[in-house]
């Protein structure tokens, strides 16, 4: 399970690196979004393999050692919420950039910088 998650994290990071090298701002943003998901998965892998363990919901008569470590999940939840907000902001920036420049191409934007 952990191996699978690690491979998945690698794939996500690789895909996001590829996307971040794109020529359009859209692709770059998608790359950043994927990177966030990769990071979240990496944290999930930290909580150990969940095989044979119960979800971390406290109930009477459950041995605490049978539960999965809940803290990484809490961390991921927070990171997801923050990522959610940041993604919305980034999308808004793209929309505004489009409105001002009528293009999302990095090359054109960089050229406009010089003038």
């Amino acid at each position: 399970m952990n191996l699978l998650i690690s491979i998945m994290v690698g794939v996500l990071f690789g895909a996001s690196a590829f996307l971040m090298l794109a020529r359009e701002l859209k692709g770059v943003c998608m790359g950043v979004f994927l990177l966030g998901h990769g990071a979240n998965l990496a944290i999930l892998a930290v909580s150990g393999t969940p095989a044979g363990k119960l979800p971390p919901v406290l109930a009477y008569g459950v041995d605490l050692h049978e539960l999965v470590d809940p803290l990484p999940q809490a961390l991921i939840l927070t990171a997801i919420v923050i990522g959610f907000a940041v993604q919305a902001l980034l999308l808004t920036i793209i929309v505004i950039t489009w409105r001002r420049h009528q293009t999302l191409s990095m090359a054109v934007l960089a050229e406009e910088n010089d003038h």
Partner: protein
Amino acid sequence: MTQHQIVLFVVLPMAGGIATMFLHRFHMAQRWVGAGFLLLNIYFACMALATVVPTGSILVSQMGNWPAPFGITIAVDTLSALMLTVGSIVCFCVFLYCVCQFDRDQQGGFFHPMFHMLMLGVQWSFITGDFFNLFVAFEIMLMASYAIFCIGTSKAQMKQAYKYVLLNLLGSTMFVTCLGLIYGQLGTLNMADITRIAMADQLPKTSIPILVMMVLVFGGKTAIFPLWYWLPDTYHTLPSAIGGLFAGLLTKVGAYVMIRVFVMMLGTSQAITEIVAPFLLVTAGITMFLGVLGAVSMHTVRRILSIHIISQVGYMLMGMGLAITIGVKPEIKELAVAGAIFFILHNMVVKCCLFLCSGLMIEHAGDDDLGKIGGLLKRAPWLATLFMIAALSLAGLPPLSGFFGKWVLLSAGFRSEHYIVVSIAVLTSLFTLLSMLKIWSYGFWSPAQGKHVDKPQILPRTVGGTWAIALLVLMSLSMGFGAQKYYSMCATAAKSLIDPSAYVRAVLGERNTPKRVLNNPVSHKTHVQSAPEKISH
């Protein structure tokens, strides 16, 4: 100030943000309410400083009453209190400037909530005792800064905005990945708990690369040598006041966190310092020298100032590097950290002040390109005087605050026999003076040209802005003439950072505090067995 009141440093700016959000249609009310909250904040910061400094005590509060390594801890020690006090004063001055100089549309309905939220993020990172909360605080601070960055959405701003946002996002993602891995290795994210593990020399060997990687995370935020490329391109597009706020607070938060993490938390772990210390010292030299060379080559006031931020970060890095170099005597380490803290405080005030000055120069002359302006000395003698004091202070001339920060750092460098970095630091100071004199001679002395010559009938309203600058200059002067007072506070802070057992005891309680292990020759092989028990697995 009692223990649990320190949470006010988070609550007050947040309440300010909420209140101004409710009032987003009423500009005057927003201003007055905001100013009230900021003044209250300064008051509480001074109270905290007055409580903490005389006894060197540490105020700790556990959120929700959950005990330390499990719950969220916030703690105010001397370093935090100093940063809070100076930070809140800088914030207030920038606020004053914004309110007096900005047009109404630039302030918009949501500038004020974002301003308070930015302050919330900054203050939270100053007082948090928990790594993950540091991440959250950073995110709040950055999110507010993105929003402030985009206010006005002018073409030039939007071109740079996505660069700034994307690079910071990369840094944040790296940070959160590091945090996950650290939790996997150490089973805790509480700063005091990690300090305890480092002091007992129990860091598992596998955690060391991850902890070292944090240099890159915080280095990106602080703009150290290989990671500073984003800064000079972005800051100069901002309105001057916002540039001043970012220059005065955001990079300094990075520097503060680096001191907290690498000097206090990990400074006792030899395995980490032997990698980080040489890196920091080398980067310090390159950062300060390249930064100042960039500043000398620029010809726009805001560009000079923004690339100067990088050069100044070099001095802070030098202090940190000296403080964790193996083989340096403890008293010299304390000297170096105290110097770095003094320098950060001085830089927060002066850098922000210079940015505000550049804003008023633009108000008068209509531009900040040094080729197109001149003769501002006659037009605005007060501005010229204040600018001169701040600029000389930045360059480090004797009775002013910059001199003392540099003096302490240089003497620490001399006494620990790091002559190369010391000589680079001295050279950098000379170039700093050169670049400041460039602004002075082109902007204030050279034959008059610019808007104030072409359209002399237009008199910009600059009284409020000048007052804001004057307050900051007064602050800087007090740090220069009262250097002994400030330095002794910095020294108290430095002492508790070099020997963090008091911090650990305050947060974790008496029971969990280990005896200090000084340069323990225990071999690394025993680490894995003695690694702390993890909560899971």
